[in-house]
């Protein structure tokens, strides 16, 4: 698709503002606001039941919000004239008729969206599913179903990609493929919003994160910034046969020292070079010296502590 078809205001930014969904007994999403920038992969994180899927479905006009708005490039999804040319979405791995072939699944969508039916084969090739084009959906593995979902989302060559748990059911090779695929799309300037609970994967994939729990926003920002803002800084792991000596030396340098079950020292408050210098000065033999950076999982658990759980 040429960019000429897109209005200049359609920058592909997603804006969620005051979004709320009240079900009979549960406020699934509670006054949620965040933005998603084009050209970056944004991870949408939250514990199970945090309201991620409900939020995405409100964004896509599948669920009606109780209050608030969600727009893509300044428009509500329902107001887009050719939605598939603007937004591609992958919501459920199992959303195709079991008795229909992969290529026919895409052709059905092309027909409804007014896209040329040649796009079906092109999209299949894009996700590497061409060999399985004429196989029925029920014969697809979970990974192939995910790829077919992505192919469907790419039919209209959209500016914005929205994916709900796309890594579910993928094998390591598939996950690596997905990571490269999505990063590449963001690199091309597209907006990529990915919900997931696989935090280690998100740490590798996402540029920005939006973390929600209990239907509310917990934190939004670039991954590095969110991780850097945590109370726990980098922590140094030290293994030494002379633990007591080193502990004394480090405490003298105003560091805090914990010992784990294996006898490894966990040092907070000083960096690895400082620990090395202290060991050298004290004449202590070191077997391991490494810096433990806080990972997204640790940050996530700290941020969402007490806010997750069944509601």
């Amino acid at each position: 698709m040429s960019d000429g078809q897109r209005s200049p205001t359609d920058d592909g930014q997603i804006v969620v503002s005051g979004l709320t969904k009240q079900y009979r007994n549960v406020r699934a999403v509670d006054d949620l606001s965040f933005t998603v920038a084009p050209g970056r992969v944004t991870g949408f994180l939250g514990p199970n039941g945090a309201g991620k899927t409900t939020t995405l479905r409100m964004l896509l006009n599948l669920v009606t919000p109780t209050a608030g708005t969600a727009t893509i490039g300044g428009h509500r999804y329902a107001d887009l004239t050719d939605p598939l040319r603007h937004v591609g979405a992958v919501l459920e791995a199992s959303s195709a008729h079991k008795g229909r072939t992969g290529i026919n699944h895409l052709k059905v969508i092309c027909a409804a969206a007014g896209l040329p039916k040649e796009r079906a084969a092109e999209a299949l090739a894009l996700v590497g599913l061409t060999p399985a084009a004429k196989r029925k959906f029920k014969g697809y593995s979970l990974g192939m179903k995910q790829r077919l979902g992505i192919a469907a989302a790419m039919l209209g060559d959209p500016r914005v990609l929205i994916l709900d748990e796309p890594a579910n059911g993928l094998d390591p090779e598939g996950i690596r493929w997905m990571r490269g695929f999505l990063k590449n799309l963001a690199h091309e300037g597209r907006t990529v919003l990915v919900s997931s609970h696989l935090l280690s994967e998100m740490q590798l994939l996402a540029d920005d994160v939006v973390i929600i729990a209990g239907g509310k926003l917990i934190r939004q920002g670039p991954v590095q910034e969110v991780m850097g803002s945590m109370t726990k800084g980098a922590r140094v792991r030290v293994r030494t046969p002379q633990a007591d000596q080193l502990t004394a030396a480090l405490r003298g340098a105003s560091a805090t020292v914990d010992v784990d079950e294996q006898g490894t020292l966990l040092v907070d408050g000083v960096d690895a070079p400082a620990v090395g210098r202290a060991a050298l000065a004290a004449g202590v033999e070191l077997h391991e010296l490494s810096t433990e950076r806080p990972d997204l999982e640790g940050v996530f658990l700290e941020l969402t502590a007490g806010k997750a759980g069944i509601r």
Partner: protein
Amino acid sequence: MNLVRSELLKIRSTSIWWILALIYLPLWGITLFFNYIQSDALVNGDLGEVPADQADTFDALKDPDALAANLFTNGQFFGLMMVMLLGIIVVTSEFFHQTVTTTFLTVPHRSAVMLAKLVAAAGLGVVFWLVTTAANLLSGAAVLGAIGVDARYTGAVWEAVGLNGLAYLLWAILGVGLGVLIRSQIGATVTGILLYLGGSIGAVILISTLAGRFGDWINNLQLLVPSLASSLMVSGTDDLPGNPPQWAGAAVLIGYALVAGVVGTLLVRKRDIS
């Protein structure tokens, strides 16, 4: 138009259409056989002493136009059920296979999607009717020849054939409406069949019992049973004695189809898809 094309492709790309055709074929054959026996008995058979109050009815049925109309609309009873099932499945398979998400993502205007489904189902109903009618014209002419009646192609006969087509169209729409009201594939299918078969048989028994007790005017209530309304609508001769007029059956059936289609569309517009 794109949407209707997409809906038709949805049906063509699965096996449902030929499964229904396969179920329908033997049923069509059986009804043809019974219509042959019945026509033969009416024309050549010795029916014995016909009670005076039923003589008019028999005379009406024996009329060559009525015989031809009956044979050229052969298979209607089960054919209507098949197109109703097709209409049901056009909707419920979307929920069963969770493709409704993709469908509404592709086209957020849900009324347009529902309209396309109604048009596609109605179109398929008409195709079903065309194929059946082509087969009926051949087999019906053969049956009429076999029982020694000249094949008749009068206006009354064509009217019956045309009204039969309208019935196919309307039942397909009724099926779509039923599918929206009962989203469960199995639930809607079973309810549809029960309403169609049990409903009409039960209603016939009930209405004739009541008519025996409270007088013939009760027979007019047959109108309200969809399957009876449609058979009334297409019965090819002028009014059978004791029955309501033909156009009333058409009006009732169109009314049901409109209500089912409109209510179904309104429901889908509001519903959260999750």
